[in-house]
């Protein structure tokens, strides 16, 4: 506190020796300082009068360096049209200048008037200056239970190179204050502290004042905010915002007790903030809120046709000095933000962050344009650093052009629209799907070619020939097996007919079954002959041939036995002999059949394995 005052004293001493600047004079100055949030807004209404003879086209605004480095936003506007006509404010261009012969430690901004101010004319200027980091927490460290107090320093007189005839200053605050510098004509009432009016002060008048007040507003400061706006011409604008947030107020010291905080959150934890509200465009969709360890479940979303409000709550209450980081993302419909005129497309979207009353120390806006965009140009209503990058995403060949805009000290006033113009051919949209399709197509073609091509190096090598022969042998063996299996099936039918016979006693049916089985078995054996001959002729089949022959022989034997059994049983039925007798006669045959069948099964398995 003492240091601050010393600074101001030095400054005011320096100012005492400065000369008057020009012929302009300010006939009336009204300043209103808004200290209700952690962003300081000073609105000055200046009535400028030309007392000299030459027309003047620019008005100089002076700020002490200590303030000037915290200026985030500065506009000057004038009201055009006299009383009766509709008054519309026109904002005037402002630029930083360095006039000669001025006292040090001042920063100058020059407002260019639309038309020169000739002798005796007057003009009303509205100047809005927004400052960040000018409310210093005092004391700098507080406990959980304390309220947050901040100190604010200014000059009671309007610092100007011109003579000021009448001026007054109004400081608006949240209602509670500790102290303020008392000068003549100063008074505090309600949530306002007033200085002035002061009359006929020379140029560079300076009278430091310090106001020590209570401010429990959330001091949400984003140390870095990266907004990535990715355009997809398939119909979506994806906005991703990475916040690095800190509570910029008085740091908490000592214990943090959850008990105290939960019991009386407004007393024990008055300086903390619990939630922030982001105002998103009305048609935002697929909104998410997460950090590096996953989704943060404490958020709320509601909205109507004009806006969508996303209430986000950090994982823990934010006390002074505590940090957090999180990411918000949402999708926007393309047609609301991207427009086209004469072959040029332009994106029109807001620059700042959607959360209200957040000061951003370093804002980086990246606009990712689709691959193949050309002739990119950006128009931003205020000065920003700007460069281009490329971003490689899925299925990109050369990368997407990225326009990067960087700005420090961003306040809600910067939440204006900016435009990115570029050219883009609609055919480029098809590039990625076509790439995928052709890729898969080529893959399948390659597969087809691979399957159909014979990659054998030498067609006459013995190994190759042997392999061919072996394939042939396997095919023939398979044929043999098929035939044998069919034989076995017919055997099954015969057995079934016998069972049927035992149930119904229908001898004729049984006989006819026998006949059909006989004929089909004969056919099968006919089929089998050429196949076997083929197998015998092949040199590769030496190994497998004996087994196959054995199989065929066994099968034939089995066949005979079955026939025998069949005829015996049928015989018995025809003679109407008793069940016991049938059984006796069949038993021995049955045993043989069982054994044979077992052998055939074994052989089948062995051949299969080979």
């Amino acid at each position, binding site marked *: 506190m003492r240091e601050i005052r010393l600074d101001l004293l030095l400054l005011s001493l320096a100012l005492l020796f400065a000369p008057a600047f020009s012929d302009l004079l300010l006939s009336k100055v009204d300043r209103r300082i808004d200290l209700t949030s952690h962003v300081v807004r000073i609105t000055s209404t200046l009535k400028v009068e030309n007392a000299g003879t030459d027309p003047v086209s620019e008005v100089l605004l002076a700020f002490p360096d200590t303030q000037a480095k915290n200026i985030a936003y500065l506009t000057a506007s004038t009201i055009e049209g006299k009383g009766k006509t509709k008054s519309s404010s026109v904002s005037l261009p402002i630029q930083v200048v360095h006039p000669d012969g001025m006292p040090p430690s001042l920063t100058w901004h020059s407002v260019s008037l639309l038309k020169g101010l000739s002798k005796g004319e007057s003009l009303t200027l509205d100047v809005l200056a927004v400052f960040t980091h000018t409310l210093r927490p005092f004391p700098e460290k507080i406990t959980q239970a304390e309220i947050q107090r901040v100190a604010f320093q200014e000059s009671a007189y309007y610092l100007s190179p011109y003579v000021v005839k009448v001026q007054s200053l109004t400081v608006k605050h949240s209602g509670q204050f500790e102290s303020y510098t008392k000068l003549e004509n100063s008074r505090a009432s309600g949530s306002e502290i007033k200085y002035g009016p002061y009359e006929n002060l020379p140029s560079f008048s300076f009278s430091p004042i310090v106001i020590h007040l209570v401010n429990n507003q959330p001091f949400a400061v984003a140390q870095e905010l990266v907004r990535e706006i990715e355009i997809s011409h398939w119909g979506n604008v994806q906005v991703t915002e990475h916040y690095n947030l800190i509570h910029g107020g008085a740091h908490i010291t000592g214990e943090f007790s959850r008990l105290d905080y939960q019991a009386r959150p407004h007393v024990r934890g008055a300086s903390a903030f619990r939630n922030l509200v982001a105002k998103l465009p009305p048609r935002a969709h697929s909104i998410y809120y997460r950090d590096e360890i996953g989704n943060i479940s404490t958020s709320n979303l509601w909205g109507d046709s004009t806006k969508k409000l996303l209430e986000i709550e950090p994982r823990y209450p934010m006390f002074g000095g505590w940090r957090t980081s999180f990411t918000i993302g949402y999708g926007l419909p393309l047609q609301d933000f991207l427009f086209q005129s004469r072959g040029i497309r332009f994106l029109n979207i807001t620059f700042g962050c959607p959360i209200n009353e957040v000061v951003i120390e370093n804002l980086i806006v990246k606009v990712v344009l689709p691959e193949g965009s050309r002739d990119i140009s950006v128009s931003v209503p205020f000065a920003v650093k700007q460069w281009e990058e490329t971003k490689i995403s899925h299925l990109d060949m050369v990368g997407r052009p990225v326009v990067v805009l960087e700005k420090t000290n961003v306040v809600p006033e910067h939440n204006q629209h900016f435009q990115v113009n570029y050219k883009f051919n609609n055919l480029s949209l098809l590039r990625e799907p076509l790439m995928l399709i052709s890729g898969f197509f080529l893959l399948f073609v390659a597969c087809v070619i691979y399957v159909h091509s014979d990659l054998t190096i030498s067609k006459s090598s013995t190994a190759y020939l042997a392999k061919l022969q072996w394939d042939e042998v396997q095919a023939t063996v398979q044929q043999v097996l098929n035939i044998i299996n069919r034989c076995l099936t017919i055997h099954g039918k015969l057995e079934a007919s016998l069972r049927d016979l035992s149930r119904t006693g229908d001898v004729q049916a*049984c006989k006819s079954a026998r006949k059909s089985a006989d004929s089909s078995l004969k056919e099968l054996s006919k089929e089998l002959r050429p196949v076997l001959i083929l197998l015998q002729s092949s040199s590769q089949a030496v190994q497998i041939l004996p087994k196959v022959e054995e199989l065929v022989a066994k099968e034939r034997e089995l066949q005979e036995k079955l026939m025998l059994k069949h005829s015996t049983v049928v015989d018995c039925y025809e003679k109407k002999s008793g069940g016991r007798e049938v059984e006796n006669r069949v038993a021995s045959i049955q045993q043989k059949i*069982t054994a044979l069948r077992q052998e055939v099964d074994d052989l089948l398995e062995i051949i299969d394995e080979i």
Partner: protein
Amino acid sequence: MQVVLGTLLASLVPVVGFNAVMTSEHFASFLVFIFIHVVAFAYYIKGLLSQKMFKVAVTLVASVGMVLCCAVVAVLIAMVASSPTKGWSGRSLSLLDPTYASKYIPIIASVSEHQPPTWPSYFMDINVLAFLVPAGITACFLPLSDASSFVILYIVTSVYFSGVMVRLMLVLAPAACILSGIALSEAFDVFTGSIKFQLPGISRNSQIDVRDTSSAGVVTQDDGVKTDKNEESLKERPSKKNKKKERENAEKALIKPPLEKRLLVLPLEASVISLLLLVLLGAFYVVHCVWAAAEAYSAPSIVLTSHTNNGLHVFDDFREAYAWLSHNTEVDDKVASWWDYGYQTTAMANRTVIVDNNTWNNTHIATVGTAMSSPEKAAWEIFHSLDVKYVLVVFGGLVGYPSDDINKFLWMVRIGGGVFPHIKEPDYLRDGQYRIDSQATPTMLNCLMYKLCYYRFVETDGQGFDRVRKTEIGKKHFKLTHFEEVFTTHHWMVRLYKLKPPKNRIRGKTKKSKTKASSTTGSKGSGKRNPWQ
């Protein structure tokens, strides 16, 4: 080949390293590996040499080999015998003897995964498989082949291991799947076989179908539709002939069974219904598996939810605390907590921890356990010597979260006491009971864990009612002298304390230098005031 490759790959894992060769658990597989190779080599040699030469070689190799083997085995036995556990790690020893871990290595016994499973957990994990497995075993015995006996051995061993530790349920799962697959396949075989045998419609046209043909013969002979009912009505017909034939038929079936399994025909309706039931069973099992995977195995135990009248209530306290740690502490601050939260803290809070879930350093874990079970001052000294800045405890008493540090505390005492004998478990138990109410022992009520968990807890409801232990806490009003609360999460589930800096030291030193000059009593006084000097 696979043994060598597997061992090489395993030893590439840093934690495993040479353990893959050095520990006794792996001897069996290596022995089998060597044995197979020796046999293969012998056969190879046998092919190369003549009979006589081979005999000579065998005697030569056998004699030399025996000597060599004896030497190697002797060395191995000596090496193995030199280690107290015979080269076996505690975990595998507790597989062989389920009571081993709880007797000697509390750190293994303290892990809930190492507890023997309960019956409900079997049903929860393998559900219907629990009933299908016995059926599968019987199916394996029907024709006992090499493959099926292997499967039986597999299921028996895996059932044993899963009975020792819950985590080895994983070993049981594939075995149970295979066996219930066998059971289901057999059942489907029987049912579909009997359906096919009796369904007339299919077989009327197709003559080639292998299995159907047995019934096709029946149909082609007499075009009558033969379902079971018809058969039964036939049976009831009082005809001697038929009866005889039937008997004969039955006797035939008796002779045939191993060959003609297809003749084991079940009634059509019964088999259709049972098929449907089996399919339903399978479908419900899928439903159960999806549910179990979603609820029991995917739900992150780090985000807890409870269903209340107002809807879903989320307890996201762990991540709240970890996020706070990662954003609001210095990067090189160290956090002490019980090892359960070690990996989580490392991953989510990006802070160094003292002990974590890689529990290989028992002494370190015992040190933290000792600190947690010591009184505040001693604990502060331990933590300070470990360069710890923050202490994290998990406390479920406010919302009723049962797996908190107070419930785990006895294990901390046991593990700590295993290395530092001045921590004795009976000191924390009143008549063998673990309690934190007014009957608790003074050691319990003064230990760091109790204090950190219940610091200012009484002020929440005025009584200090712990919802997990369902009792009022024993010591309600106390202050912390060496720790300060820096963060507590929304539901009090995670509480973070910071070690107070040793700021008294400077004052003590100056006083000491003063008092040294003046008197000895003064230095005593300063010694009292300055407890960590």
